């Protein structure tokens, strides 16, 4: 005997993500989901980004890691509210789901911020599948990884709105083919904006920060 179900498996997460989105819109908070493989420099990029936003765009960060508060400690030095989520003390969850972000956001005074970064768990597979109620999804790759990351993880690069290629200060020491890397991004996601940056030297950060400011302005003015 067959019973028809016809339901999305992740409908619970999707509903929760929509609730988050509604809450963030109501409060006029632009939410940026930042994803990458471990070690691409998400935290360093956010440190430098937050420094540039200081005094201009009130911001906060929710940071997801399996263990430790190291990233949160670093980010807190920039002076913004930081909330660390540890998915497990011993080898836990590989992504942040919408209900986790909802709980964490409840700890922040959303009426005092315009920009909320969610630094996801370092992973190019699982976070791709989970909507957390963000406005924009950002994927970071770095020049110390392969140029073929977009081809290996097409779901991630398809579902994101912008790519950052980090650690460009190391290019003189590497065989990295930057043009090929960009070509691979565009093969998976034609027209995707790409910013090449060095969190270390600050090179290329202006374009990325301007892009973010435009997102915040759009959100605050109720455009999205």
């Amino acid at each position, binding site marked *: 005997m067959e019973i028809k179900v016809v339901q999305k*498996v992740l409908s619970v997460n999707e509903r929760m993500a929509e609730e988050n989105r509604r809450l963030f819109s109501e409060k006029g908070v632009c939410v940026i989901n930042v994803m990458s493989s471990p070690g691409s420099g998400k935290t360093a990029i956010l440190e430098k980004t937050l420094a540039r936003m200081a005094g201009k765009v009130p911001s906060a960060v929710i940071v997801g890691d399996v263990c430790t508060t190291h990233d949160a400690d670093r980010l807190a030095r920039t002076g913004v509210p930081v909330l660390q989520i540890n998915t497990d003390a011993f080898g836990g969850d590989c992504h942040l789901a919408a209900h986790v972000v909802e709980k964490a956001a409840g700890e922040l005074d959303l009426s005092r911020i315009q920009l909320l970064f969610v630094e996801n768990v370092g992973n190019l597979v699982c976070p791709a599948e989970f909507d957390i109620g963000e406005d924009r999804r950002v994927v970071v790759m770095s020049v110390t990884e392969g140029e073929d990351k977009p081809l290996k993880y097409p779901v*991630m690069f398809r579902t994101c709105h912008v790519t950052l290629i980090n650690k460009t200060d190391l290019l003189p020491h590497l065989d990295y083919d930057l043009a090929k890397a960009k070509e691979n991004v565009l093969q998976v996601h*034609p027209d995707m904006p790409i910013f090449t940056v060095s969190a270390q030297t600050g090179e290329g950060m202006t374009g990325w920060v301007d892009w973010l400011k435009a997102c915040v302005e759009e959100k605050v003015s109720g455009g999205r």
Partner: protein
Amino acid sequence: MFVKTWGGWGNFVPRRSAMHEMGIAMEILTIASASIPEPLKGAKVRSIRLKVGKLTAVIPESLRFCFDIVSKDTPLSGAHLHIEEIPVVARCKACQNQWTLSGPSFSCPFCESGKLEILSGRELDIDAIEIEEDDDGKPVKGKA
């Protein structure tokens, strides 16, 4: 300025899943269990039909492995996951051609435009469940 930490699952995150297929398997278990009509509660579920797009981060083998673990000692224990893999089909917004993608190249093969509409491939749907019946067509009771 503050840093607040939640650690461990007991006080914050209700679900434990070392790989995301585990969480997905748990969702399938929840949805399938809730879909069994009241008079059939406790009946053995023979199979669950799923549609999984090729453009999802879900590996059918991992999903089956996880489902076997999470469904243990439930009426859904032993239920087979019939996974229909859905190909990635795109339509070009510029020239209206439609094709099935065989790799991660998302430009139109006809006019090279990158403005595509993805028609299928992102599915992660539970379609139906099948209740096991005896020779008389009566539902067989599950283990738990």
